[in-house]
């Protein structure tokens, strides 16, 4: 039996005309081409994002499909927990300290890299490695470097006399050292991106400006601090914004190195949200914890927007 659809008369020329018009109309075509991407993003970023806000004021758990509105109860509950405040403090500390070092070191490294020299591509390749290698895998490299018995840092420091014969720090076993280790890895991971972005900013400064300064007799340091760095500052800020977002929202480094230990002293918001929401099954609590990252993300987005506007005008 033929389906009614096939039995229908052949399509009239009107739809073809319509399609032709659609394929030609810039207005409708661009909307048609954009819609699939926007729908996908709305469904897979927008919807779960709203759901996360809803979970944070509900009693959602892994075990139950029933969800009820509970107001701010989750927030009261997590804010009564000492570990939450430790996580918040650690997130701020790790981000602030690591990004301070990243911006300072990235400027030094970028200035050193701006001139041409032999083997530059190899140096650049080696410098970029931490950023391009999957961080969950390179963190394992650091786990081995920080190993309690076979730490290469300790062996080297003892061999060259920095550590005495009785000093053998257990990097990941003691709270302050564990935090230091996490900060070192975060600096290590984010430094390449900041460097390469700042380097691109340095190369985009017109040669005329450097020449004019040279004619005026500016020495290296004066030139650096009054001309080069101020001109590169707007781009350095972009590098900093991304660095902040990627560090605040990172779960991997803490997860691989310490799992929040020893005794939850190195938990950050993301890891505490994971252990509460996913491993503990308390979806509502986990969502509430992770939403404490939101103010940072909103602030960074606003700054980024302002910067993008300015770049557009320039």
């Amino acid at each position, binding site marked *: 039996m033929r389906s009614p659809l096939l039995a229908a008369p052949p399509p009239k020329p009107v739809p073809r005309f319509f399609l032709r018009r659609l394929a030609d109309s810039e207005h409708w075509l661009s909307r048609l081409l954009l819609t699939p991407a926007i729908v996908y993003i709305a469904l897979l970023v927008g919807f779960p994002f709203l759901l996360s806000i809803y979970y944070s004021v509900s009693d959602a758990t892994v075990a139950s499909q029933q969800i009820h509105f509970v107001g701010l109860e989750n927030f009261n509950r997590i804010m009564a927990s000492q570990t939450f405040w430790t996580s918040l403090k650690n997130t701020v500390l790790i981000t602030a300290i690591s990004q301070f070092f990243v911006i300072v070191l990235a400027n030094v490294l970028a200035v050193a890299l701006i001139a041409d020299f032999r083997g530059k591509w190899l140096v650049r390749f080696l410098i970029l490695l931490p950023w391009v290698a999957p961080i969950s895998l390179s963190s394992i490299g650091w786990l081995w470097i920080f190993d309690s018995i076979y730490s290469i840092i300790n062996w080297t420091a003892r061999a060259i006399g920095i550590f005495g014969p009785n000093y053998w720090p257990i990097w990941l076993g003691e709270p302050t050292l564990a935090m230091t280790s996490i900060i070192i890895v975060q600096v290590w991971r984010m430094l390449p991106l900041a460097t390469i972005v700042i380097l691109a900013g340095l190369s*985009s400064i017109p040669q005329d400006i450097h020449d004019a300064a040279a004619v005026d007799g500016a020495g290296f340091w004066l030139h650096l601090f009054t001309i080069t760095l101020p001109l590169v500052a707007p781009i350095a800020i972009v590098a900093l914004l991304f660095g902040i977002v990627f560090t605040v929202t990172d779960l991997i480094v803490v997860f691989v190195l310490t799992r929040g230990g020893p005794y939850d002293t190195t938990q950050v918001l993301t890891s505490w949200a994971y252990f509460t929401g996913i491993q503990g099954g308390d979806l509502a609590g986990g969502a509430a914890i992770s939403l404490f990252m939101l103010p940072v993300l909103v602030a960074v987005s606003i700054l980024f927007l302002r910067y993008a506007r300015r770049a557009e005008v320039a």
Partner: protein
Amino acid sequence: MKTAPASVRGSARAGARGAILLFFVTFLAFPFYWMLITTFKTTRDLYNTANNPYLFHDPPTLDHLQVLFSSTQYMQWLANTAFVGVIVVAITLVLAVPAGYALARMRGSSAQNLGIAIFLTYLVPPTILFIPFSRIISNLGLQDSLWSLVLVYPSFTVPFCTWLLMGFFKAIPRDLEDAAMVDGLSRLGAFLKVVIPISTAGILTAVIFAFTLVIQEFVYGVTFITSSASYTVSVGVPTFLVRGDVYFWGSMMAACLIVSLPVAIVYNLFVDRFVVGFTVGAVK
């Protein structure tokens, strides 16, 4: 300094640069160098604290590589990663190429705002979304399935690649399409038959970045996947090989290097385009 001749100052500066670069290269590349050494050392040599760890006291060995490939699921994880990567790249291109083109060709500030809005969704982190997603994925029956990753990964590859491709398409002059339309092609036809063929470099860049983002992803993988046979490589190595009391350091370091190095080499070829995308095209 004032009295020093220019050549002395120049060589002093070159020396300072050399010292700075040596310091940074050591800091940034050392973990990979250390992985390389560990990969080829015998276990006996690795665990003898009396030995100088920088030197080989036993001849280099391939034992760790053999263990990795024959006694672990590493090959399976690599295959899983490739499977997810290929499908995610395909989905990404289908969505991001048209969207990037549309954003590049739309006039007015609304297009610019829309472009930035799409890019900003790239900043909404998996570490906020993974909790609602864990419920969504289980309701869809995709728990412990690679298809959960195929579904979710485009949520970060599409915004990023749309933004990247928008920049590429903007660099292609409109005149090309107008000429093609005079020759009788529709605007859509001009896009498909004229713009896409000359944009292969841009599309290839998007492919590389989408694929590397998939290889690097960890948070969703560790949340959705529970059985070791379905891990991707960036989740399988840190969660499965680390568990238990015995650390197979040699095999683990090999597992990390084998994935990191090819990704790093390919990525390096495209990193400048990545920077242009990141800085809103302010540096070219």
